[in-house]
């Protein structure tokens, strides 16, 4: 098994996870794409070392074949991650159309519950202001679309 490929898989996962932790949607999509590349490479690596193409000929044995199964699995995984990346991009675009921001939004309901907790305390103002600013910024979230 190639050490270079193993290092490459590790690097793809690391960079992908780093991008995934961002709030910008496009970076999240890119991060997931990189992790998908890493996972697919890992599948191919799992099949062992390189070999000849797995065609059965009368005059040749099957001993030096590359393992075809992980390649078939990787192909399936590639198709699935490709389709879902496109779906994610469409979602990100829809989010941009609706809110004008290419970012992950806060869970308003969760913030509201948190505010209910804090209202008995004295220092609620800061959180309340933050929430009000958030709600003013995102009027579209208050009511469902007509």
């Amino acid at each position, binding site marked *: 098994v190639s050490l270079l490929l193993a290092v490459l898989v590790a690097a793809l996962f690391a960079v992908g996870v780093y991008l995934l932790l961002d709030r910008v949607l496009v970076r999240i999509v890119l991060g997931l794409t990189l992790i*998908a590349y890493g996972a697919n490479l890992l599948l191919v690596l799992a099949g062992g070392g390189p070999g000849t193409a797995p065609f059965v000929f009368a005059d040749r044995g099957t001993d030096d074949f590359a393992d075809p*199964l992980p390649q078939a699995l990787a192909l399936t995984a590639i198709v699935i991650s490709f389709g879902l990346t496109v*779906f*994610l991009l469409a979602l990100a675009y829809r989010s941009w159309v609706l809110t004008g921001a290419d970012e992950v939004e806060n869970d308003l309901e969760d913030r509201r519950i948190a505010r209910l907790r804090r209202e008995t305390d004295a220092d609620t103002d800061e959180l309340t202001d933050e929430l009000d600013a958030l709600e003013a910024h995102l009027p579209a979230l208050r009511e469902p679309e007509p």
Partner: protein
Amino acid sequence: VNALLAAPVIVPLTAAAVAVMAARRVPLQRALSVAGVTGALVCAVAVLVTVDRDGVIATQVGAWPAPAGITLVADLFAALVLVVGLATVLAVLVFAIGQPGCDDESPAFHPVFLIMTAGVAMAFLTGDLFNLFVAFEVTLTASYVLITHGGSANQVRTGMTYVVINLLASLLFVSAVAFLYAATGTVNLADLASRLDAVDPNLRTALALLFLVVFGIKAAIFPLFFWLPDSYPTAPSPVTAVFAGLLTKVGVYAIIRTDTLLFPGDLPERLLLLVAALTMVVGVLGAIAQDDMKRILSFHIVSQIGYMILGLGLFTVAGLAGAVLFIVHQVPVKASLFLVGGIVEHAAGSTALSRVGGLVRRIPYAAALFLLVAGSLAGIPPLSGFVGKLALVEAGFDARSFAVVGVSLAVSLLTLFSMVKIWNGVFWGVPEEPTPQLATSVGRLRTPPLMNIAAGALVALTLAIAVWAGPLYELCTEAAATLVDPAPYVRAVLP
């Protein structure tokens, strides 16, 4: 070749394909959808009867012999969950047809719903780890479409979280399969069960943990549940109902299947019991903090998953039988709670506890249904939840795991508390800031009869589970016996 096993997957898929061609012809699509799910349910019942009579049955897709080909296999566990799952899907489908504006506004609803049904059936029936990944993807891709179906800002926001977290889990799944293949050279579950014996125990533990994380995200166990209570409540009620009833249970099914067949005893001791206790406690505490009916119910999905993991963590025949029985009871109960929530939302315009109230007089039928299933969720005798919890508690005492049993009983009380909170907020009292529907009308509120019939039928199913708990528990014990000793499973796949 036993073609019966493939039918619960193929029938809904075929119906989906035809339904795509019948786009914009709503009555035809509805007929196809109901026919597809009913057909799959009939085949699933036939599978259950066959498995109960003959033991584990398996079929090789395309007649490629295992372990090279894809195997479909049904033991009692898979058959039981499949039957109850498809019955729930059928009831939810009828509810969706009855709810105005749910399935008739987009030509995509019925095909996507059918594809999700096929994916769930395939996840229960597959005997191949990579095929399980494909089944998950089929189910999830359909669910992505359903959860963002309306395209409103709230749905896009929560849908984004849902898609990203599930996609990450799927990529981890692919990586885990790659590691497992590198270690053993096969992805057939029955073949893996024997080959994993030769693998280093430490590596087995690492793989078991990796798979626990992968399926734990899908099943929403502690601490991987955070995406669920945010994303589920924004979808239309029938969609939330089928997600709540089935999708997390597919994750639990995969956890139980892999941990009994592939990695028995490989997880650190008591890890699953600890996870189970924390899942129960954190889920129910989250539910208590909420003040919207659908969000309370969403946190309870998490809490109830803990009971299933508890049964697995005990790892005795009685514990696993309790877990199987609990899944069988939980699928229709959870779905029908969300269907009642759907009726409330349709009649009153909201499910926020502050905006609705006094509905026991306005929609008494829904209130009665809610009492029956909420009591079942909390485990009040003689409803189905009591039977499931009794089986788990007895198994816990037999295994001398007193602490986790105590936790599960305390969580039951808290569950009852939050059900009473919903009852007080939605069905009793007066709303603080009533919705327009409630403020401008008096007397009974009208709800479409089909919605009432579908929710009532599902509640009747939960009552039937309670009535026939004895024979059902015997079936679950048989299923658990095959889980603890998977020799019949392996023999059926690799003769």
